[in-house]
């Protein structure tokens, strides 16, 4: 089996895990959730195996490099980090309903990578600018941050649809406590913020080693900074002004929109950021 086959299979496994988590939540079947955890774990293992195999394959092709160099590879890595972080959260908080809002994101990321006609899943040789260890540090830190923000986004959505009220009955009543959702959002955002900061810094160091300038206001750089400003606002609003609940949830959703735009939207804008371009 080659890496593409494994990763396609992983997509299905994530799809199944997402389905199980949602099913467990909506129909109150705990056993489905427990199976979901194992399926998600299996998906993560498959995802990791796919990445490692792809790495090996690139060496066999004589163009060896870490599989973190284009949109396809970054999405695959993104799916894995979402799953890893989610599984840790599940373990810590002992709550599987969050999975219904997190694992679908991992599924969407890898499904988009595999199925979109705009995304090339071939192993490509590295163009000169990408030949740098800073690239690996940069992509890894950025995507750990993005994954944490993605789950924070899922949790914020839970908060918003729950509407801040306590419900006795129904699907929404099974969502975790408001306090837990609020705290979890913030924890994930702090974690993501550290890595986003690291991602911007490694990106700057890489730019300085490749082009002799650490900051050039190119759209991708600028959008990552915009994202940073949004989350930085959130942190100050919470620490100094005691914002909680809905307002934090909205800022978290806004922040994740900025992440998504940094990631995909920038390709629609004029300008060049070779990494992450479609193709």
């Amino acid at each position, binding site marked *: 089996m080659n890496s593409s086959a494994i990763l396609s299979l992983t997509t299905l496994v994530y799809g199944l895990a997402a389905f199980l988590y949602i099913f467990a939540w909506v129909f109150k079947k705990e056993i489905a959730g427990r199976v979901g955890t194992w399926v998600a774990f299996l998906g993560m293992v498959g995802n990791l195996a796919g990445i490692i195999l792809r790495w090996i394959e690139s060496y066999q092709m004589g163009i060896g490099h870490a599989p973190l160099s284009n949109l396809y590879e970054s999405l695959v890595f993104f799916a894995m980090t979402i799953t890893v972080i989610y599984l840790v959260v599940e373990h810590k908080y002992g709550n599987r309903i969050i999975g219904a809002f997190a694992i679908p994101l991992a599924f969407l990321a890898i499904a988009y990578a595999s199925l979109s006609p705009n995304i090339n899943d071939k192993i490509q040789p590295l163009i*000169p*600018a990408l030949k740098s260890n800073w690239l690996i540090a940069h992509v890894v830190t950025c995507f750990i941050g993005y994954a944490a923000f993605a789950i924070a986004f899922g949790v914020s959505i839970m908060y918003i649809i729950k509407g801040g009220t306590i419900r006795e009955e129904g699907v929404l009543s099974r969502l975790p406590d408001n306090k837990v959702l609020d705290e979890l959002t913030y924890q994930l955002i702090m974690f993501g913020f550290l890595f986003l900061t690291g991602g911007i*810094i490694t990106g700057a160091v890489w730019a300085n080693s490749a082009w002799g*300038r650490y900051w050039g206001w190119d759209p991708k750089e*600028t959008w990552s900074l915009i994202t940073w400003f949004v989350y930085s606002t959130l942190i100050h609003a919470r620490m100094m002004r005691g914002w909680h609940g809905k307002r934090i949830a909205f800022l978290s959703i806004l922040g994740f929109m900025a992440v998504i735009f940094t990631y995909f939207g920038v390709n629609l804008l004029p300008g060049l950021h070779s990494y992450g371009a479609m193709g």
Partner: protein
Amino acid sequence: MEKKETPPNFLKSIWRFFATVKLTVAVLLSLAVTSVIGTVIPQNQSSAAYIDAFGEKLFRIFGLLNFFDMYHSWWFQLLLILLTVNVIVCSLDRFPVIWKIVSVKNPPFNVRNFRSDAKKQEFVSKKSPNVLRKIYESFIRQKFRYCRVEGTDNGWCLFGEKGRWTRLGAYIVHLSIIFLLFGGLLGSVFGFEGYVNIPEGETVDSIWLNNRQERHQLDFEIRCEDFDVSFYESGAPKEYRSLITIFEEGQPVFKKNIVVNDPIRFKGINIFQSSYGTDAADTATLDITSRKSGLDYIKKVKIGETIELPEGIGMFSLKKYSRNALFRGHDIGESFLGILRPKDGNPIEVILPTRFPGFDKMRKGELIISIRDYDKRYYTGLQVTHDPGVPVVYIGFIIMILGCFVTLFMSHQRICIETIKTEENSRVMVAGTANKNKLGMQQKIKKITENLQDHS
């Protein structure tokens, strides 16, 4: 008399204004929103391109608002300055208070505060307070940096804490922002950014500055000894490599192969491989076909050289090479220009595009001349930068990451254990507080309590 009080009050209210986190939120969000403009409108393009895209009217308005170079506009810089002032003033404002809290030698504590904690844990032990004291103290000492035990009327009270200094975390982050902004300022005042294209074998001593039609004189010379580009099978570039020698006062002082991501750093100036191209060739091999005899002749000519044409037709001089020659207003790409001097008749100008070998047929002369081969000469495109702010910025980066870690994940934790002698046994209370991540602290207290219970 009242008037005299106005200035200090006025200054005070300005100071207050600059110290608030409201201003921070407003400025951060303004920066986030306005930064979008520069990502939607390409920056530093030519006026013509902008008029094309937006029309005359919008072009004027956008121009007035500095939208075409917005990150260097006065209003964007003003926002950055506001941010800096905000972060400095806030830190100066709060620092003395925080420092007082952080720098105490013997932190005070009040058992009553812990007793009234809703999340405190309590249990009963069979052992006496004195026995428990030894066990608990050594246990807490392992986990908390500071620990002290005080006797009470009928038992004792232990107080432990750690991470007091992490209250400085936000100041560490804020300090890093000052480093970044200051480093950026240093770079923009004392640094430069430019580029230069050097054909193989040639030497330059000045560069073009980016975004300005201006040359910048270097105090050394850069020679490109050799340039190589290699490609993958797919045709994508694999590596650009230039062998560069630096000369000072005519003497070679430094030599290095540079590739993308591995520049030369010489006397604070960085020389980066960034692009390449082909430059004037100086020798061409001509393919000359005679219409009369049908024979083919091959001749090698240097630019500026004149050769005798076969079959006694006349002379030919190769005049120059052009990267994109024009023919009746059309760009026909790389071409050589020559002059044909027939034995009888006027000199004729001949264009020999390298891409279209049959081009000269159109002239309907006795000979058809085409370019069979030519020595291409590459030029290397170098980015040349000087930025004395980089070390300051990098220090800022390190401080920022450390500061973020401290601020976001470390907290000032305090614990209090009180043991009271009751008939035949002891009653133990465990309570703790943290300035951040309170839920995490509650869990920690629970765990510690369980541990203590196991030990007693």
